[in-house]
């Protein structure tokens, strides 16, 4: 980090803030709650109890982890902006990139820790290798979500609006494949200008959003060794998209007159 002094310190403090604050407690509490619900579902199932429990828990944990990480990142950045901590930090002899990259590294570590905690209960229900592949995918997804939350907080500056934007980004990224399937249906007035315009708009949006519909599917827990074949494409998507989000945050951060 010789080119970006202060990066590791900012990263460390971002992580320490999460671990000392209520986030760590919230992650554990939600993971326990999810496990409790899964065990309850198992009591109701007549057959395939482990599959029902594992699938429901994976879907729940994925959503809960994303929500927790997003809310932590956005509230942390907002608090820093409100307390004038950001201005104080930038008054030091460190480049603005150090702040963004440092925060990104800290939140990446936080995302991976959250993925680890949310993965652990799944080992009760599903094979370890499948849980591992699912967990890696979840860690990549949470990292991108954290980066999106960081970029939105820095660009927008208002926590409620940032939360809304990240929620829209996450939801659309997850359901875009289904939306595209519906818009490509041949039944109905596909020649109408509104349908064509919407089709182009959705196609353009799909090109810009990450393919979260391919990440951390609960069905992977029962796919055997084939589950690993999903990961290379996800890694490429991650390697492309993380710099994009970091680039957006950096671009706006340098543009701003702080």
């Amino acid at each position, binding site marked *: 980090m010789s080119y970006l002094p202060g990066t590791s310190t900012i990263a460390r403090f971002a992580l320490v803030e999460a671990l000392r604050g209520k986030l760590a407690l919230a992650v554990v509490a939600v993971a326990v709650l999810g496990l409790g619900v899964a065990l309850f579902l198992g009591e109701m199932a007549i057959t395939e109890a482990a599959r029902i429990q594992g699938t429901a828990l994976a879907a729940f944990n994925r959503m809960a982890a994303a929500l927790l990480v997003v809310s932590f990142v956005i509230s942390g950045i907002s608090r820093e902006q409100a307390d004038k901590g950001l201005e104080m930090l930038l008054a030091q002899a460190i480049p603005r990139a150090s702040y963004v990259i440092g925060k990104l590294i800290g939140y990446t570590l936080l995302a991976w820790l959250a993925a680890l905690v949310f993965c652990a209960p799944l080992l009760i229900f599903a094979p370890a290798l499948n849980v591992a592949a699912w967990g890696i995918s979840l860690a990549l997804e949470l990292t991108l979500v954290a980066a999106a939350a960081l970029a939105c907080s820095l660009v927008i500056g208002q926590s409620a609006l940032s939360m809304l934007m990240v929620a829209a980004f996450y939801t659309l990224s997850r359901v875009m494949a289904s939306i595209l*399937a519906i818009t490509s249906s041949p039944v109905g007035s596909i020649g109408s200008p509104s349908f064509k315009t919407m089709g182009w708009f959705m196609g353009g949006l799909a*090109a*810009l959003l990450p393919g979260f519909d391919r990440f951390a599917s609960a069905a992977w827990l029962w796919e055997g060794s084939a589950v690993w074949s999903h990961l290379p*494409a996800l890694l*490429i998507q991650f390697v492309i998209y993380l710099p994009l989000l970091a680039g957006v945050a*950096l671009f706006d951060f*340098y543009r701003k007159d702080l």
Partner: protein
Amino acid sequence: MPIPVVLILACALLWQTIWSAMYPRTHPGAEDLTEPPSAASIRVSSLDESVAYAKLMNLTLQAHDNQPGISLPFRHLDYVRIEAWLGRILELDPTGQYPLLAASRLYGTVDDPVRQRRMLDFVQRQFLADPNQRWQWMAHAAYVARHQLRDLPLAARFAESLRLHATSRQVPAWARQMEIFLRADMNEFDTARVLLGALLASGQVTDPSEYRFLAGRLTELETRRGPAGK
């Protein structure tokens, strides 16, 4: 603005666009239609917006036969599941006409009598649940039975159902009269004559031209019946 920041943003944006084009969001191969979710789970997952969810289910089902990269002929679709989906959609949104249109005019056009009959039976069952709002689909089912399946008894059964259950004044007279002509086509002149006579006597036909036309048909049936009857 540092040049590396601009370069990172531009390159990442370019790579993301290229990656999306190289690896489109498609699912290779045909996906089976799953069982529809239960009404209770839909109510929970849609935060009690079940009608809105039902509308989306219409589009999801409709999109199933045209999955990205492939277009499935209707005869390759699982009609048992399609029926289950259509039934669930109607359960959530009873005033919606979309599932009945899909059953009678979309999935009912399949070139397979077994599947076609399944859709027609579905339409009839759902028609009986709300005859005055769903009569048009029953009328279309009678048309399909008569002209596509060439099953006159089935068409007459549908038309009879229309006459007996679709009693609202909103239902046009031609729909209630359909059975008469179908019975005549089946050479059931006595039945047709009785039905037509009862219709004229009931006073439901108020248009003079229509009355004259139907009376003419009654005379024609009387002639065909002959002195010994059929």
